[in-house]
Structure formats: C-alpha cells, structure tokens
C-alpha cells in the first residue's frame, strides 16, 4: 500500500514533468487548428516546427480518432523544409468530431507533442461538417408520391441571362399528400413568393441572376417537415464562356522521381545526406496500380526503416493488394494505421457481401544488441577483503536492440456494412526469438560468437561458467513477447443507414516472455505448483497461436492450496476483454450518438499502443444542425470509470461535459466561427488525510494517512494506515477559432485566429494545477496585381504547471511569402520566424518537522513528509531565429530544380548556428 502511494505520487510528478519537458526543448510545434473539417474532402493539416531538420527526428505521427473512440488511428506525416503536412479525409460515417494530436519522435527517443499537455487526453477537437455543396440535398428527406417534369432550364445547361425561365410541372394525388405547399429555392433562397405557382405547376423568371452556376430546388413543406422534391443545377453564361469543373482522374500513368542532396551543419557537425524518391501510378479500366519508394543515405540499422517502398494494386471495389511498407486498418482494438513491412490485401465479393482481409509482415524489424565487454566488480568487505565478484554486461552506445516482431492477421465478414454485417477478426503478433543475439546469462555469450569475455581471466570465466545466472545485464534483458487479439464485430443500419449500430468485442492475450515456450508440468513444478497434464497438453496445442506460460500478463490459472499442495486450475480472466458498442441516429437536423465501452486493464494489442485501458462507461452526444446546416450546436456528456476489474484500491470516476457551437456559412464573405468548452472532473472518492500535518500542508503530503482504532493484544490502539492517493481535480478547456476572408487593397486575405485555454484545478494535491493559454493568428494574403502570396502570423503559449513548479512562455512571429515569376517558371519563397522561449522551473523538496531534505536529514517517520517547492529556481531564456528560403525553377515541362536553405540562430545560448542547404531535382512524367 505504501509503495503504491509513493509510486502514484512519483508518477504524478513524472507526468507533470513529462508534459512540460517538451517545452524546454529547443523545438516547439506551432499549429493553427482548422475551424472545421469538411466531410468527404481532404482537409489539410500543417504543423510548423522552426529549426527542425530531417535528421533531428525518427518519425512524425498524427494520431486521430472520431467522436472520442477508445483508441487513435495513426498516419505518418511527411516533412518538408520546416513543415509537417498531412491531410485528414473524414469518412462518410456518422462521426461529428475528429480529435487529433501530433507526435514527433526525436532521434534521442524523446517525444515532442502538440498539444504538449497530456495530448491523448486533451487532443485538438474539430467539428466535422458536411460538404457545403451537398448540404441542401443531404439535409432533406425525399418526398414520395410526387412526380415532376423539369421544363426549363435543363439540368447542367447554360442559359443566357435574358432567357432564364424556371418551370416545373408537378404530378401527384392531392388526397394522399400531407397538407403543405411547394417551394422554389434558388441557391438556397426561397423565391416562392415571387414565383408563379399553382397546384401542379411552378414557374419563375428571375431578374438579374448573376452569371455562374446556380442551383434550383423544389421542396414540399408541411407544418412539421420539409421534403425534397428535386434539385438541379444550371449556369447563367454567355456563349463561349468556360467554367472550371475540377481535377479528374486520367488513365495516363503518372509519376515522378526526385533526387536530393543535402548539406547541413548541425551543432558544428557537418553532415551530407542523399535521398531518392519515386512514385508511379495509373489505371487501366477498373484496374489501378501505384508504386512508391524512398531511399536515403540516412538509413540506419539502429532505427526502424527509413527507406520505404510499396506497391498497391486494386481492381474496382473487389480486390485491393498492398505490399511493402503498408498501413493497414482492421479495427480500433487491433490495428489502425500502424506501419508494417509486409502485405495487406482484401477481397470483396458478391457486391461487398463477403469480405476478406489478410495481412502479414514485420511490425518491427530486428535491431542488434550492442554489448560492451564484461565488467567485473569486486565485492569488498573491510579494507581489501574481496569476498565475491559481480559480473555485469552493459549496452554500449545505447545499443539496446529489439526482436523482429511479426504480425499476422485477418478479418472475414458477411453482409454489407450499410445493411447488416457480422465479422470476425484475429491478430497474432510474436517476436522472433532467433532474430538477434540476446544475452540472458553467461551461456549465451559462450555459445555465441561474441568475444565479450576476453577481458576475464580463466578463474573468472570458470566461475561464470559454473554459475551462468550470475551475469547481470545492466538495463535489463530484452524479452520476446507474444500477443493475440481475436474478436468479432456487428454492425447494421436501418432507415437508409440513418440509424446505425456498431459493436466490437475482443479478447487479448499477452505474453511478456515467450523464451521458454508453453508452460510444462516440469516448469510448473519448478515454480512450486502442479498443473494437470490435460492443461499442459492444451497449452502445447495452442502454442502455434499464443505461447502461454508463467510470463503471461494475466495467467489464466488459479492457484489453490490443499494440504500444503498447490494446484493450478484454469479460469477466465475478464480483464483481458474489451468491447465497444455504439448506436447513432443521423438525421438531417440532428445527430445523436450513444456509446458504451468496457476495456479491461489487461487488454493489449501490440499493434495499437493508443488504446485507453482499464476504462468503462458511456458517452452521449447530440448535435443539432440549424439554418440549412450552417449552424451546428453540440452537447455531450461522458461518464467513465477505471478499476473495471476491481483490482485497485480506489476507483476514479471521470465525468466530462462538452459543448460546441460552430457557424459555417457557405458565403465566404462571412466568418466561420467555432467555440467549444469542456469541463471534466476526476474523483476517486478518497479523502486527503494526514493527521501529522497541519491543514496548510495537508495537500502537499507525500503520504495519505488515516488513523484507525484497532484492538491489538486486547488493547485499543490507534494505528496509522496509508490509504490510496486521493484524486480530485477538474479541468476547464475553452477553445475558439474564427476565420474570415476579406478583400483589402486589391488583395484577398484569409485571417484565422485560434484561442485556447486550459485550466486544471487540483483539490487534493497542492502541485496539481495547470494553467495554459495559447493564441495563434495567421494572415494569408493573395495579391491581385502581383504574383505574390504572403503569410504573417503570431503564436503565444503560456503554460504554468505544478502550481508554480514550472512556467513556460513561448511566443513567436513569422513572416513569409511566395513570388511567382516568368509565367510561373520560377517560384521564390522565403520565411523568417522568431520564437522566444522563457522558462522557470523549480524542483521538489521533501520536508518534515525537522526541515527539508535539501538542507538536512529528515526524521525517521516518513508519514509526516510533505512536498515543497525548492527556493532556488532555474531560469532559461533563449530565442531562435529561423530563416528559410527556397526556389523552384521549372526547366521544362518535365524537369524542375528546387533549392532550399535554412539558417537557425539561437540567442543567449553558446550554440553554433545551424544551416542546411538542399538541392532537389524532380522529373515528372
């Protein structure tokens, strides 16, 4: 109990430190969250990290999820000259929000996050709205029993302004139609009053209708509902006038090859890097193909693959085949976008009523352990009395490796997912124990080709040979793991898929060390219990799927003692289960979603690390669309609890209230606005108690102590009991963003402003408060008189965490522009960014009635210890100037040269300037 309390406390401190540590680093991520995402289109997302270079990080991942799902999907983000750019394509599902956070894994292994404060719990939340052009047609139910003939103008045609006549003949049985009236709308505006209408005919001759595309809609409005009758588009044009229709696919193979050379000086180290990238894609009828590859001289066998390649073949909606580095999706509890090196293929038969998916590959490639020579340390008693020797094996150059981890998975489903579908899936992940040399004891050194024991004398070698387990591997051995996830899913839709039910239930098994294979009777005997032979036979038979032994995350065996003999009986541990059920109603004016999830603490998928475990509860959200889908109002309530298997001392209840209002006018002259708040409380019901501390120090107590009167040796005695760490805090998160397009001095300007505020108040821990405010503003201007586009922006982030333990203030501005010359043959761009970082941190001191540990020794009673902030603080202040410049020269239609340069200067630090020069050649065909 005591240990647990301390661990929790340390963990809390660690989390606070981890959350703020990124702010101390030289890099900080700047991001302007979009006001809204449009469903059915690619929505661009850009993260800017001033000063970062391709060689500074291993990978950049965007984690995203819909409507607060139990885990995040992930996708890799491409980097180019200071910017990380990707896009999100909201699928045509019932989701109303996307939540995302961004992680850059630096070469040191440190993660850099946006948002930087507990990103998976406080992700960026953006509302999804339906595509503007589809709003009118999607939002109305089609009326039945009304036929029509469009007399004028024909759909898709162009009409000169003086010839616009709108005329529609209607046919219906008046008796069978609910009382109401027909309405005529042009571009969403109701013009029925001005139209010539009779019971079966509507006509309208608009005056001064502007040139361009217009939409006409006929609706039937009753007292309670408005139905769609028909809608079509036409254009008001002059003969010969042309309008842009859009990009379209073509059957011509497309591709490009890019070669780049980079010279960089980072912290005084000169480094040259070369890379090549290629891509080709095309289609023949329903057959589509693409191949891509990336080769770099930065490929490092100590890292996961930097060289990437892959092919994708597809035939209509029937067959899809991906090989190479692929990013398969199966379900939120198995794998959702994690990269594997292998293949992923799916087949959809009988109009997508029979669906099969199969994947196989390498989840992680093997990385060899780098060992140093053995170290011998004498165990000395007294002055020179050597009584024993310790033998250590250490990793050199942080050379801890990992096994090759293979993944095999598949899914089989029946039925169309929009009607009724039932599916089954399974995923097996297992480390290959033979993929690397992994020293567990001295025998592994002797049996391998490693000459790590050359510095040992014969006596020492003999001693280790006799007791090979005496060899201690510092930083620990790496253990091969095995994982199985299997489950089923069910989904169906009714009322034209407006009402949907989706559920998934899975079970997992995780073995943390599969070296010794499945549990045997002999091994059980060594461990001190008996196992029925039938059980060991069963485990042996299951070993092709999952190796079950004593190293399971949860051992499905109950140990019972009977007359001194311990026997093992199998049981079913529910903590390895996970399930999610979701019922959603998506009607034109209202989207309601009810979700229930239950995820056990021991549920594991090694292919998805973002699954939130040990959680159960429900979420209800409702979104109302008003004014033809231009105003969205969302309210949501969530109630979650941990300790679902009742294995912990206290249960934390988390209640969240969320609301959002978004104004999304089609007319771009009006601003697009989104404002949201989230209020969350966490409470585990444990009172803060410590009778040894005064009230003003109570919330700083290291331990939570309560006194109980118990009878000991027949006498009533007051004893001190360490209770679970109390948890009681609340967070208020307010976000607002606005984007406005306007014209000024012959320029078209897009102005965006984001303001975000997070305040966490801890009621039971004196150093648990967090206050964070961030503001970002961006102005993009396009000049009509000059081939110029400029950007101007300012970012500000002030975060105080740990109730004064750390204060980080980051602010910066940037200015940049792009100039297009010589009929766009030459494109020149430049950008200057300045970021100022100020931080002040204080360490914790542990104190008691005697004083504080930084000054003197504490008394022997740890129960009266309390945390205090150290008097001394560490301040750090520096600024970074980043200047980027680049140009693109299109030599011919197929050939282009690109040049990028980047100079970083850090002020107030004895750091040399970093500079990067890169030249790229692109051949496109």
């Amino acid at each position: 109990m005591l240990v647990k309390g301390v661990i929790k406390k340390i963990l809390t401190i660690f989390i606070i430190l981890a959350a703020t540590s990124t702010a101390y680093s030289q890099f900080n991520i700047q991001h302007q969250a979009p006001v809204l995402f449009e469903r059915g289109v690619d929505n661009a997302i850009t993260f800017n990290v001033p000063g970062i270079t391709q060689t500074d990080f291993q990978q950049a991942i965007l984690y995203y999820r819909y409507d607060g799902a139990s885990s995040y999907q992930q996708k890799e983000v491409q980097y180019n000259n200071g910017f990380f750019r990707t896009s999100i394509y909201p699928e045509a599902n019932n989701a109303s929000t996307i939540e995302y956070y961004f992680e850059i894994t630096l070469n040191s292994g440190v993660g850099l996050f946006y948002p930087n404060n507990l990103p998976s719990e406080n992700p960026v939340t953006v509302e999804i709205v339906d595509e503007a052009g589809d709003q009118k047609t999607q939002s109305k139910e089609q009326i039945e029993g009304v036929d029509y003939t469009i007399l004028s103008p024909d759909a898709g045609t162009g009409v000169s302004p003086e010839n616009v006549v709108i005329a529609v003949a209607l046919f219906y049985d008046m008796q069978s139609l609910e009382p109401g009236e027909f309405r005529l709308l042009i571009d969403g505006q109701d013009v029925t009053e001005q139209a010539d209408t009779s019971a079966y005919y509507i006509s309208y001759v608009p005056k001064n209708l502007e040139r361009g595309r217009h939409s006409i809609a006929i609706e039937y409005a009753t007292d309670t509902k408005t139905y769609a009758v028909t809608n079509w588009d036409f254009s008001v044009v002059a003969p010969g006038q042309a309008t842009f229709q859009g990009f379209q696919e073509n059957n011509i193979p497309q591709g490009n090859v890019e070669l780049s050379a980079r010279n960089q000086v980072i912290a005084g180290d000169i480094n040259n890097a070369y890379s090549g990238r290629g891509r080709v894609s095309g289609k023949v009828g329903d057959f589509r193909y693409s191949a891509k590859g990336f080769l770099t001289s930065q490929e490092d066998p100590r890292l996961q693959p930097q060289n990437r390649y892959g092919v994708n073949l597809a035939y209509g909606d029937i067959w899809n085949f991906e090989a190479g580095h692929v990013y398969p999706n199966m379900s939120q509890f198995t794998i959702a976008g994690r990269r594997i090196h292998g293949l992923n293929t799916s087949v959809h038969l009988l109009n997508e009523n029979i669906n099969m998916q199969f994947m196989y590959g390498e989840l992680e490639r093997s990385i060899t352990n780098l060992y140093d020579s053995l170290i011998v340390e004498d165990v000395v008693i007294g002055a020179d009395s050597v009584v024993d020797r310790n033998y250590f094996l250490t990793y050199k150059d942080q050379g801890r490796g990992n096994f090759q981890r293979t993944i095999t998975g598949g899914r089989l489903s029946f039925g169309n997912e929009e009607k009724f579908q039932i599916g089954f899936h399974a995923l097996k992940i297992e480390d290959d124990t033979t993929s690397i040399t992994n020293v567990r004891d001295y025998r592994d050194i002797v049996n391998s080709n490693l000459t790590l024991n050359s510095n040992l004398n014969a006596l020492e070698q003999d001693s280790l040979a006799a007791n090979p387990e005496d060899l201690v591997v510092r930083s620990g051995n790496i253990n091969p793991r095995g994982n199985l996830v299997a489950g089923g899913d069910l989904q169906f839709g009714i009322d034209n898929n407006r009402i949907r039910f989706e559920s998934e239930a899975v079970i997992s098994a995780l073995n943390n060390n599969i070296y010794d294979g499945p549990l045997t009777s002999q091994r059980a005997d060594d461990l001190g219990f008996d196992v029925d032979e039938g059980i060991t036979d069963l485990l042996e038979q299951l070993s092709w799927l999952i190796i079950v032994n004593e190293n399971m995350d949860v051992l499905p065996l109950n140990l019972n003692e009977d007359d001194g003999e311990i026997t093992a009986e199998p049981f079913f541990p529910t903590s390895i289960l996970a399930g999610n059920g979701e019922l959603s109603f998506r009607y034109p004016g209202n989207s309601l979603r009810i979700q229930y999830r239950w995820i056990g603490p021991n549920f594991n998928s090694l292919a998805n690390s973002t699954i939130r475990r040990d959680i159960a509860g429900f979420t209800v959200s409702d979104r109302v669309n008003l004014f033809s889908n231009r105003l969205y109002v969302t309210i949501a309530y969530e109630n979650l609890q941990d300790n679902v298997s009742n294995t912990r001392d206290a249960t934390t209840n988390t209640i969240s209230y969320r609301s959002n209002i978004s104004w999304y006018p089609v007319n771009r002259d009006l601003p697009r606005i989104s404002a949201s708040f989230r209020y969350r409380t966490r409470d585990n019901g444990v009172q803060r108690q410590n009778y040894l501390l005064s009230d003003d120090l109570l919330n700083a107590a290291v331990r939570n102590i309560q006194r109980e009167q118990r009878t000991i040796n027949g006498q009533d005695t007051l004893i001190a009991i360490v209770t679970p760490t109390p948890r009681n805090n609340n967070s208020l998160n307010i976000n607002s963003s606005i984007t406005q397009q306007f014209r000024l001095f012959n320029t078209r300007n897009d102005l965006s402003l984001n303001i975000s505020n997070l305040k966490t108040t801890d009621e039971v821990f004196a150093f648990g408060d967090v206050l964070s405010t961030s503001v970002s503003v961006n102005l993009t201007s396009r000049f009509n008189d000059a081939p110029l586009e400029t950007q101007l922006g300012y970012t500000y982030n002030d975060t105080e965490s740990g109730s004064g333990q750390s204060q980080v203030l980051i602010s910066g501005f940037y200015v940049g522009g792009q100039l297009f010359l010589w009929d766009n043959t030459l494109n020149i761009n430049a950008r200057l960014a300045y970021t100022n970082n100020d931080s002040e941190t204080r360490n914790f001191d542990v104190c008691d009635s005697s004083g504080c540990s930084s000054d003197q020794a504490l008394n022997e009673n740890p129960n009266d210890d309390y945390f205090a902030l150290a008097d001394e603080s560490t301040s750090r202040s520096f600024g970074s100037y980043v200047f980027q410049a680049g140009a693109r020269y299109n030599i011919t239609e197929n050939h282009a040269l690109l040049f990028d340069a980047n100079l970083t200067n850090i002020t107030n630090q004895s750091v040399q300037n970093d500079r990067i020069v890169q030249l790229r050649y692109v051949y496109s065909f």
Partner: protein
Amino acid sequence: MKRLFKYVYISVFLITGMGFVSSSVINSTSDRPIAIVKHFKPDVNLRNLEVDKDLMLDPQENMGEQLFSGDSLITREEGFALVVFMDRSVAKVKPSSMLILKGEVGTASKEMSTRIDLEEGEVFLEVQPQGGNDFEVATNRSLASVKGTNFGNRSDGYIWVQEGQVDVTALNSGQTVSLFEKMYAQVDDQGNDIQSGTLSDEEIEELDEGFDEVEDNDLEQKEIILKFRDQNGQLQEITIDVFEEGNN
C-alpha cells in the same frame, strides 16, 4: 314497353353518370397548363375567346407564359415561338402561323393527350416518346399521330420526318401512311389522297431552314480537357465546361 323504358332509364342513368365522371375529369385537369411559351420573338399573340383572353406577349413580362387547352397561339410576320409541353415535347412555331392547342394533362400521373390544330403556317415538333399518351397535329386535311419523333408540319398538309415515325391520315378518305426518317407526305386539298416519298439531306436541310430562329436557347455543356503540369511536376487534367449553342 316496360323493358324498353327500363333500357331507356339505364341509358339515361349511364349517360348522366358518364357526364358527371367526365366533368369531374375535366375539372381535375383543366386548371393546369398543357404547355408554356419558353421563348418567343415578337410579335406573338395569345388568344382564347372562350375565356376572353387576348394577349400580345411581352418579352419582359410573358417569358414562360402558360398555355391552356383552347388557347390559340398566333405568330405575326416576324414572330417566332418555342412551346414546351408538359412532357417536355417542343413545338417550334414559324412566323405567320396559327395553332390551337387542345389537350389534357393528368394530375396524379404524367398521362396526357395533346392535339395541335394547325390552322396556318408551319411548325417543327420534337415529340418525346409518348408511351400511352397521344400527340397529334391536325390540319384541315391531315392528321399526324406521333410516338416520339422530330418532324415538321405545314398547314397545307405537308409533313416531313427528320427522325422517328409519324402516321399520317388523310382526313376525308381515312387513308393512312407511315413516314419514317427522311420521308415526306403531302395530303391533297380534299383530304383524300396522300403522296409520300423520300427526301435528300439537302431537302431536309432546306425544310428545316428558319427553325433555327426559334432554337431552344439553353446552351449545351461541352467539356474541354486541358492537361498541364502542376507546381510539383505532376500531370494534371482540368476539365473546362464550355457552353455552346446546341444542335436542336
């Protein structure tokens, strides 16, 4: 005698009943137009003496004017008119023509019957496939029944077919001939005899002459695909919609 009265009573009852039914049918259809004047060039006159209608169409006010059963459309020397019927059939009316429109259009379904009495002048018709509906053009000597075709009809009983099939009947003798693509028929002035034959492309072109004055002014959308390389060197295609005069 009693039996005779019985039959008389039944007949009177049936006739009266039929009268009620037919009047209710008329009531259910007469309040809707059977066509509109989609475009016209002055001077075009619209008349219906039964309802005291006499209207000179004004381009500023009467574009899309509704035509009801019994209306007469008269084009003066410089006038043209393009009439669109409720089934999207089109009649292009040349100058110095007069036609009386008769017909019924259902309310609950697209059932309709249309008859044009061509008193004077010349029309060219693009008639939608009719299904169970009727579309007829009558002169004082000929009756043309069509099922979905493009054909011309003059008040002097001359009919030519550009596309589809037209059945032509001489009103006096009842003689009927079927005309197909690039054929003509001439009913004599007594309405007894029909002469028919084939037409060359040049003759068809000559007969169609003048109707382009009353083309449907909706411009056809055509696509032009432009290929170019974008800033990243990728080959892109842009489809440009160009609106051009149609062929109809």
